[in-house]
């Protein structure tokens, strides 16, 4: 059975056909590859395919089944869509809806200012929170018109990546 993997706009179907130790025959969509693949516990891969040498490193992201892939040339966001993920997707339409109702931190930092209070009416584009990291301040704005239903952090607090900060109704 195959799984789906998403990189950027592309979703491909991956299926293993045969394996002998580090030699794999593997199908990516309709294309069949014979690869010599070695990897280690730290997610570092060396793949030889038709003589070409590829170095790939996969670093897990905070969300399970999500990786950042590093090649010598570029960086990609990779998402594994297995049965479980497919089920969730079909059921709830993903996180998109949720995301519109919340502000999360894209990076670790410190809360500098929260110019709103719970219950405030805000318009799309209003600044809801200012975060500082590495001598630089960034303002995060409301994704929509609404009412601040919950503020989960306070000024001066240190926050992690992907931490939920503010909910809007």
């Amino acid at each position: 059975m195959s799984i789906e993997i998403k990189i950027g706009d592309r979703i491909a179907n991956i299926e293993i056909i045969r394996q002998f130790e580090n030699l794999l025959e593997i199908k990516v969509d309709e294309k069949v590859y014979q690869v010599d693949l070695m990897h280690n516990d730290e997610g570092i891969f060396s793949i030889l395919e038709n003589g070409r040498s590829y170095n790939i490193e996969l670093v897990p992201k905070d969300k399970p089944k999500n990786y950042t892939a590093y090649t010598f040339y570029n960086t990609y966001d990779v998402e594994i869509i297995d049965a479980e993920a497919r089920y969730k997707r079909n059921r709830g339409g993903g996180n998109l809806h949720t995301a519109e109702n919340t502000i999360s931190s894209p990076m670790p930092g410190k809360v500098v200012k929260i110019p709103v209070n719970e219950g405030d009416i805000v318009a799309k584009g209003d600044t809801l929170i200012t975060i500082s990291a590495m001598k630089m301040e960034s303002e995060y704005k409301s994704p929509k018109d609404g009412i601040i239903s919950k503020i989960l952090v306070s000024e001066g607090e240190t926050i992690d990546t992907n931490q939920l900060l503010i909910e809007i109704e």
Partner: protein
Amino acid sequence: MKIKKILIANRGEIAIRIMRTCREMGICSVAVFSEADRTAMHVRYAEEAYYIGKSPSSESYLNGDKIIEVALRCGADAIHPGYGFLSENASFAKKCTDSGIIFIGPSPEVIIRMGDKIEARKTMIAAGVPVVPGTTEHIKSEKEAIEVIRSIGLPVMVKAAAGGGGKGMRLVHREEDIIPSVRAARSEALASFGDDAVYIEKYITSPHHIEFQILGDQHGNTVHLFERECSVQRRHQKMIEETPSPLMTPELRATMGKYAVEAAKAVAYSGAGTIEFLVDDNHNFYFLEMNTRLQVEHPITERVTGIDLVKQQIKIAEGEKLPFKQEDLKQSGHAIECRVYAEDPDNNFMPNPGKIFNITQPLGLGVRTDGYVYEGYEIPIYYDSMIAKLIVWAENRDEAIARMRRALYEYKITGVKTSIKFLEKIMETEDFKTGIYDTNFIEKNKDFLTEKSLCDGECLDMVMIAAYVEYLDQLNRAQTSKQLYPAQNRWKKYTYQKNFERL
């Protein structure tokens, strides 16, 4: 006086860079660290290390009294401030001296004089060094502002006398904006520095930012170590520096170098310092400011002159005479520095602190790295986002660019986003390759620089395959007992055949 022990009042790459020279000179190095920096490399590299306070700089690396207390307690002869933090803080320099500790840098008087921008302009004018046309006193009234700006001609910059970091600065293009801009600059200056004095300078459109390294000893000997071209900037921060400057001619270099030495002599400068100039395409140059400390980009000067600048700083502080004269110095070959920031170039260079997974250092012929992060290290959110500097040298500029591309290609830092790929793109930009660029470079080439160079379909398929195997492996790992020492068996062949059915 021979210095035997130096406290380095800094962190990150510059702290380690200074400790390296200390070690080569047989000098004991003392680190200080904040709460966030207990496991930082400079603490591990130093012979001694002392805790000085909480993570925010204001409670640690900017706490001069605490640092002097540590220096006295551990018996340090001298303090090296590095760059940033207390490096241009005159009262800290004075307190060091008053406590009998050598401050490795110029005298507090010189720091004060060069720190006040109006004062610095006046000093330079008196020494005959060209400055950007503008006022030499702070503006007393809005009426005066209008008159002055009319005589200089638009566009102009209104600048806070006590300014820095882009605060209290306003660019004025239209006459009707003069009064609002002066008012805004004043109120921002007051809020930021407690001083609303502003002055006015002609605005040079898209200038080159070129600086001269100078060294002066305590016996009146001053030399310059040639220029550094620093025009590749984003958010007014330098990204790439090179020497020689592609803009430079031998005549211009001689003239600017002479003025740089005169500028330093005008304040009897001792130590390492930098005279920054703005230069237009017609080779007109203007004194911009003096940095009374070591610069981030000092290694490119070290590479083309062969001189260890930190060693010279220490020897000057010991009272030694400069071991060379101007005519002994020469530039050989070409050096480029790239600054590696933990930031996301695709998202307005937003800082990206976090945990480092793996690092592959670029090595080999003509490559130098000065960094401080290591595998497993978590970059703190409190400090600067620069995590490493990559310096290459080659016989000429084309080779240096090719070598920098090779080094950037090899350089891998995973776990956080970095500017490495963006820097690689800069090396491929036509304007950079031809050397015809100014401070507008990044803005001008934005489209090319942010263009994604996706690898071909096959390469993407390989990423898919790797992700697939990683996923299988993880399923497998979650179900079998894990090894105590992953390092003992990092590379391996597969044992997860049984997972294939489970999908």
